[in-house]
């Protein structure tokens, strides 16, 4: 009785692991197929432009407002800590480096996952549930090329721009609080920032991060939508999974990328 119980548990665990590995393999194959069949999305660029509108332009408000507030909080908190060491002139460096290296790509990625990623999953999942994807196949239109690929490229192209806007807005917010409200010297704020922020090491690495996050989030979103169980419950589950999985993916990838970028060689 006992032995059978343990065996059943082990079998369930094994089954869960196997099915996850199976899903990962399917997702990788799906990504490859998607990239190979994105000719239509790039040739009829209008399709992709419409998706940039939904993923990028409509996310602008949340990205800009959050960026402003994150920068303002950084300005306040940073000033509180730095003035204890008499280093409040370094506020610009603190705000700019935290935003450009970490917070810009990561927070913009998390917001993008919950704002645009969930919408992509829900849309594709509903198309599958209402058999629009099957109808396309009947008409010899490849739904991956016509529906999935433009959404994928729209998300991938939007994400780096959104992260850059988030960082720029955050630095503006830090400037508003630090210089205008608290009264840090504006010359020191900008010049120390410019002396310490490196274009290649800091800004470009931040852009690379946002590109990687954009690919990861959009890939997860389109895959979850395409793989959703075609019922109302299945679509809602897939949407939840998109947000959870892509948030975890962003944070885990961020650790790996930071370890690769900022600890190698010159230790800046």
């Amino acid at each position, binding site marked *: 009785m006992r032995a059978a119980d343990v065996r059943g548990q082990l079998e369930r665990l094994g089954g869960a692991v196997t099915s996850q590995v199976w899903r990962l393999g399917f997702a990788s194959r799906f990504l490859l197929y998607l990239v190979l069949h994105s000719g239509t999305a790039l040739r009829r660029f209008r399709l992709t432009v419409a998706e940039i509108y939904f993923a990028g332009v409509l996310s602008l408000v949340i990205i800009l407002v959050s960026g402003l507030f994150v920068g303002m909080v950084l300005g306040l908190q940073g000033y509180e800590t730095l003035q204890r060491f008499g280093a409040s002139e370094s506020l610009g460096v603190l705000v700019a480096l935290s935003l450009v290296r970490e917070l810009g790509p990561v927070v913009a990625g998390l917001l993008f996952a919950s704002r645009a990623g969930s919408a992509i999953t829900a849309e594709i999942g509903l198309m599958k549930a209402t058999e629009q994807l099957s109808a396309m196949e009947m008409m010899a239109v490849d739904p991956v090329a016509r529906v999935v690929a433009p959404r994928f490229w729209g998300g991938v192209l939007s994400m780096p*721009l959104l992260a850059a806007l988030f960082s720029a807005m955050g630095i503006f917010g830090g400037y508003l609080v630090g210089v205008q409200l608290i009264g840090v010297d504006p010359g020191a704020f900008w010049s120390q920032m410019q002396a310490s922020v490196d*274009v290649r090491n800091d800004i470009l690495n931040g852009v690379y991060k946002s590109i990687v996050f954009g690919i990861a989030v959009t890939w997860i979103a389109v895959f979850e939508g395409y793989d959703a169980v075609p019922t109302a419950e299945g679509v809602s589950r897939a949407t939840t999974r998109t947000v959870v999985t892509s948030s975890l993916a962003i944070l885990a990838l961020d650790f790996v990328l930071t370890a690769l970028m900022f600890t190698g060689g010159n230790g800046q």
Partner: protein
Amino acid sequence: MNRSMIDLWVGVFVVAGFAGLIFLALKVGNLASFNTSQVYPLQAKFANIGGLKVRAPVKSAGVVVGRVAEIRFDNETYEAVVSMNLDQAFQFPRDTTAKILTSGILGEQYIGLEAGGDAAMLGSGDRLRLTQSAVVLENLISQFLFNKAAEGKEAAK
């Protein structure tokens, strides 16, 4: 919303995104300074470089004139070989001294160049002969302690 409005907004979005990137590169970073100018390499050997790092500034009279490009260890002489790239606009005499200095008490370390009086200028790839190593706090403290101990002995006599 019709097609042309979508195109317009996507255009605005892309322009704003690139404007953000350019703002980051020019106003926040330091793309405008140094990356475009011509540089020439110089080398210097130090007995101890302390906490000097690659990309640390090379300053003369407090003005940044170059950056440290590479730090190697010479296994023949057991010294550190520091390669630095100096801006082509600045030329230094042959008997220039290179020192490793610290900005402030806790600040980062940099190389300070002090020009000599030689008429001949340093060329590309030349080596600075006169160098002064970084000050290591532990050595200073032990020196101080030994001096104190020696003084104490003399007073006891």
